[in-house]
């Protein structure tokens, strides 16, 4: 290869890295913004998100109300901002719960092997066969429909996915001699898993978590759409897609569209960022 070619590949690699970074920064910015809105949303809202005025029903954008009003004459922008909180919190909780349970199950199975591994595998297979939505319906029947019933149902439904993917990575890592070396050093199983095993499967954990966040956001919206999750009149993007359907039929799709767009943008940003992080770690 000529010196010229070296320079060329080096440059194109740098260009690729830079491009990756730009995308990563944009995605990170979007997510940061969404988190900020989720925290400050109600304070940012220019109007009371629940103040209805039937005179304003389906009124389009006017001064002070850049997105217009919904079917009950509530300010759309205010509802979007206020709705960010449950819309972001729900999937985050699902990710935290499902990842915690999944990592614990995977690491335990890989560490102990033998019958523990087999038993955990069977439990996961059983859970695996329940669709998430079905669990959510069951949960809302038992606990009454609420965000938390939906979150718990989805966490249970996602755990086996996480456990299955991470288990094979953890088994691979468990067989490495550096783990055996740590055992011979007298470190405890918990310490070895926390200091060596889990960090070495971390890239996969990050990738799984971001994927899961996207799924959870969409599924929670669907559950709210079915009326089993967050309950109206509380503002929530999933609920808004649902309540907006009246407007869609009458030719006023703004509410459903705006809320749906928020969901799509956040989900895509999280997935792209997760992909980038996964690549960088490798």
């Amino acid at each position, binding site marked *: 290869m000529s010196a010229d070619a070296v320079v060329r590949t080096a440059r194109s690699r740098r260009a690729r890295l830079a491009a990756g970074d730009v995308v990563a920064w944009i995605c990170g910015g979007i997510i940061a913004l969404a988190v900020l809105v989720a925290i400050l949303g109600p304070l940012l809202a220019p109007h009371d998100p629940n103040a209805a005025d039937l005179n304003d029903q389906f009124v389009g954008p006017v001064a002070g109300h850049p997105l217009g009003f919904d079917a009950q004459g509530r300010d759309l922008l205010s509802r979007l901002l206020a709705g960010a909180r449950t819309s972001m919190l729900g999937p985050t909780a699902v990710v935290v719960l499902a990842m915690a349970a999944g990592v614990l199950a995977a690491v335990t199975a890989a560490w102990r092997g033998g019958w523990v591994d087999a038993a955990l595998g069977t439990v996961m297979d059983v859970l695996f066969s329940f669709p998430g939505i079905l669990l959510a319906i069951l949960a809302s029947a038992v606990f009454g429909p609420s965000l938390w019933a939906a979150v718990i149902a989805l966490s249970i439904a996602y755990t086996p996915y996480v456990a299955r993917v991470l288990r094979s990575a953890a088994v691979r890592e468990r067989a*490495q*001699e*550096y783990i*055996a*070396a*740590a*055992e*011979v*050093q*007298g*470190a*405890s199983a918990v310490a070895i898993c926390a*200091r*060596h095993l889990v*960090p*070495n499967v971390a890239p996969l954990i990050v990738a799984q978590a971001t994927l899961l966040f996207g799924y959870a956001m969409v599924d929670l919206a669907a559950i709210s759409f079915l009326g089993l999750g967050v309950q109206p009149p509380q503002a929530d993007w999933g609920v808004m897609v649902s309540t907006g359907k009246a407007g869609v039929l009458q030719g006023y799709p703004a509410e459903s569209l705006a809320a749906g767009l928020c969901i799509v943008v956040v989900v895509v940003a999280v997935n792209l960022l997760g992909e980038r992080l996964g690549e960088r770690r490798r």
Partner: protein
Amino acid sequence: MAEPVLEARGLRKVYGDHVAVDGVDLALAPGGSLGIVGESGSGKTTVARMIVGLTRPTAGTIAVCGRDRSQPARGTAERRRRAREVQIVFQNPYASLDPRRSPADALDEVLRLHTDAGADERRARIAELGELVGLDERMLRARPRALSGGQRQRVAIARALAAQPRVIVLDEAVAALDVSIQAQILNLLADVRARIGVAYVFISHDLAVVRQIADETLVMQRGRVVERGPTEQVLDDPRDPYTRLLRASVPGPGWRPVRRGAPTTGGAT
């Protein structure tokens, strides 16, 4: 022999219907050095793993410093005490270091487990250990991926020394090193032994290296010990046919590789 620091009797390990180790006895005096040579797959690594407690023997007993360790350790204190009795250096320098941790981190972890030295003291000790095995500051800070096989193996040796054990099991520990570094490490191992009286179980395929480091030698084939004795006697005057074959297979001037009609690999049973 003085009270042995390591003693194993009737060690046996069965995997499914395959007998990997079949009735091995061995004893090691404090500060002694025992070589184990033999066929690939004859159970040398399995013996090593049983001694350090990574594999549970199917039958037989192992005692280190007079304390039995055939059963898994109970409790943190006993686990750490066992760690200060026996350490291991593995065959494969590529898998025996955590890819995410620098050598300095790895040594620090051991020092924190086994001493209550402060950060400064540990740092000094890490530099000292690095010095001992010929790793400079830069190598101590590098990720294992950026070290060559020989460099990694020296990290593994330093890590085994860090806990100041009574016995170190070295499983093919110098196989990955080039001869000049191998010479350094062998001299180093000899010095450490002379200075702190650590004892070695030294597993190797390289008979010349075993001759250099081991006082006594065991020859293993198909899970059994076929010959044992003072190293010089075993190598200069082998009795068992397998030992003779091994001795004749060592490359040297005029040596040619030969292919036997029927492979004699019992490890492949």
